């Protein structure tokens, strides 16, 4: 092996480099030890280049500043010299050694270098290869988010198939009254999107269809779709979940049930579409929020939108009972102020209100915090609060595919590394309502995230992978399924070999190199190049090593 030491411009004064060099060059598998002032600049590049081209070495150890800063540079240099960079081992003798104290750290530095050397001896080369990927994307759900995702992908030249459970596209777009500030009505939006999709050759739509099975990995998902009585398989490179959300009105928390003068937001929207059909104009409409779900933006946004529509189209008195208005969305505060300007009265409570029927009307009784008094408001109509829930089948689908859900049951684990639209499983994305983003603007950014994510994975039709960096030895594998169950990225599948034996196999493109499988495999059948057991142990074993005790 060849060893390069960097003294960082001569500034690492508490390391005696000549002593280290003298010590280590005595080892028989060390071809040379070079000391440089700046391995990361041209001086260093020249030194490394000339040594690699002239000497017959098959391992390189570099002791310098943190790999976080420089590893990529050395890797690129070695690649350019046709030296496999996975045969490089690094020791951090600056940030984690020289800079940690004033006094001499030569002994520590020497040991860190020995540890890197111990590992280097056992490193194996990893090759990089291009694998082809299927460029098509599956969009699950034909609501606003699904349709928009498909249209955006098409704009970027990617073909999609929308699988929608109902017989028509549109989802919640058919149930919304309007988006305040937007001139286009939801119906216009829906019509124009459907028209665009029909004309678009890149988009295929399957309605009254559902996905029954998903196999394979990113770049090559094997999806079984059932439509009508037919069942067929299609292959996709990525999957975007746009299955929306459903609402539940007045769950068991309330004593009353919807019906009569307790209506849902959808009921109100339908009323507002055809106000002339009303037998009697309601004089007072009350909205109630923050009773069954204090932590959702949906009731605030839909109530504000609909309250304004009521003022405009029906002229009724509108009262909104809430605890905390959720205005942390773009345009929400402006919506709130507009509503107040148009005469909507907001009453805030701390204790949940009482609701009861009296004289054919619904009465809300609450202590308004600003007035400091109990207020009793009889309404002709009470628009009940809705709780947003994940769509039907989320639980089943998420456990079948081993993708997480959050505290409320919506898609995606609550892990910041997955935000906004990604999954721990490469190639799967979640947008809009099904991941808990119930407002339009955030859904739009989710869609862009998922579209961009899919594009960068698939657009070239191929992807570069490190071949078998983590590999299951089929001889040792006993198909206990541990690795399949624990892989957070769903990168391991069970395959049947030609010999009829079933073994686990790791998909290079989906693997994220964490090593969890390798640590848990009871048969020690998984080899993780670069962090194999022997390699880590060799690092540990080099502690306390001297030239004699080798």
């Amino acid at each position, binding site marked *: 092996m060849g060893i390069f030491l960097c003294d960082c411009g001569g500034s690492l004064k508490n390391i005696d480099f000549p002593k280290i060099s003298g010590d280590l060059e005595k080892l028989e598998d060390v071809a040379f030890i070079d000391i440089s002032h700046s391995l990361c600049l041209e001086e260093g590049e020249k030194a490394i280049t000339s040594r690699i081209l002239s000497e017959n070495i098959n391992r390189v150890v570099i002791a310098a500043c943190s790999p976080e800063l420089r590893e990529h540079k050395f890797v690129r240099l070695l690649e350019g010299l046709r030296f496999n960079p996975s045969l490089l081992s690094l020791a951090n003798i600056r940030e984690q050694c020289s800079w*940690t104290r004033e006094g001499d750290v030569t002994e520590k530095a020497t040991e860190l270098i020995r540890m890197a050397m111990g590992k280097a001896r056992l490193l194996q080369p990893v090759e990089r290869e291009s694998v082809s990927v299927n460029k098509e994307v599956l969009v699950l759900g034909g609501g606003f988010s699904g349709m928009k995702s498909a249209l955006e992908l098409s704009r970027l030249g990617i073909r999609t198939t929308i699988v929608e459970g109902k017989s028509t596209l549109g989802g919640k777009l058919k149930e919304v009254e309007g988006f305040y500030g937007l001139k286009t009505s939801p119906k216009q939006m829906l019509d124009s999107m459907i028209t665009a999709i029909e004309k678009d050759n890149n988009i295929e739509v399957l309605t009254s269809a559902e996905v029954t099975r998903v196999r394979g990995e990113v770049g090559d998902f094997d999806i079984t779709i059932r439509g009508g009585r037919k069942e067929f398989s299609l292959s996709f490179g990525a999957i975007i979940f746009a299955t929306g959300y459903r609402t539940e009105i007045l769950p068991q928390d309330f004593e009353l049930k919807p019906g009569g003068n307790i209506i849902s937001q959808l009921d109100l929207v339908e009323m507002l579409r055809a106000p002339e059909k009303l037998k009697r104009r309601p004089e007072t409409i009350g909205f109630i929020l923050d009773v069954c779900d204090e932590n959702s933006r949906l009731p605030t946004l839909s109530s504000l939108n609909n309250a304004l529509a009521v003022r405009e189209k029906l002229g009724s008195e509108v009262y909104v009972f809430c605890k905390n208005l959720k205005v942390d969305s773009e345009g929400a505060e402006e919506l709130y102020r507009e509503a107040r300007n148009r005469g909507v009265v907001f009453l805030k409570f701390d204790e949940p209100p009482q609701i009861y029927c009296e004289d054919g009307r619904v009465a809300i009784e609450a202590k308004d915090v600003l007035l400091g008094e109990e207020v009793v408001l009889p309404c002709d109509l009470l628009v009940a609060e809705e709780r947003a829930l994940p769509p039907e089948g989320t639980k089943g689908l998420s456990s079948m595919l081993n993708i997480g859900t959050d505290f409320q049951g919506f898609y995606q684990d609550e892990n910041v590394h997955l935000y906004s639209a990604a999954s721990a499983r490469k190639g799967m994305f979640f947008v809009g309502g099904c991941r808990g983003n119930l407002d339009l603007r955030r859904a739009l950014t989710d869609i862009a995230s998922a579209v961009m994510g899919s594009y960068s994975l698939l657009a070239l039709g191929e992807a570069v992978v490190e071949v078998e960096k983590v590999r299951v030895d089929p001889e040792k594998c006993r198909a206990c399924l541990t690795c399949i169950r624990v892989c957070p990225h769903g990168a391991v599948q069970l395959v049947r070999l030609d010999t009829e034996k079933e073994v686990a196999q790791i998909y290079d493109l989906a693997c994220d190199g964490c090593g969890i499988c390798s640590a848990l495999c009871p048969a020690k059948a998984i080899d993780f190049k670069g962090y194999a057991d022997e390699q880590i142990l060799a690092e*540990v074993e080099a502690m306390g090593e001297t030239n004699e005790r080798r």
Partner: protein
Amino acid sequence: MNVDNNKIVAFCCANSAYQAADKAGKMRLCYPDNVRIIRVPCAGRVDVVHILKAFEKGAAGVLVMGCQEGACQHLTGNTRAKERLKYAGDLLKEVGIDRERVKMVNLAPDMAQKFICEIEVMMEKIKEA
């Protein structure tokens, strides 16, 4: 068991602890030179055999440092490491080593102070013996 020196081996995950250690160096925060940092892609990669080997080869204490609970890029890596450490502690107890000589630490890449603090805590533990 060769415990003549009091080394501390810290298995540091590349996403959090290794960077926190780098930050401590950049801030020139001092800590004793008996600490050996081994970089791993995720705390979940660390196996019991690695920990035991560390004790065998001169470590008086082992720290496994990973991301905050719930913030692991590989979702469960740090929680699995924590479980494994309990088992490692059991094994250490059987051979007469205080189980608190192996410890799971959770931190974020900016937490240089916590990195130093945990090393000092382990040093104290070792001195107690």
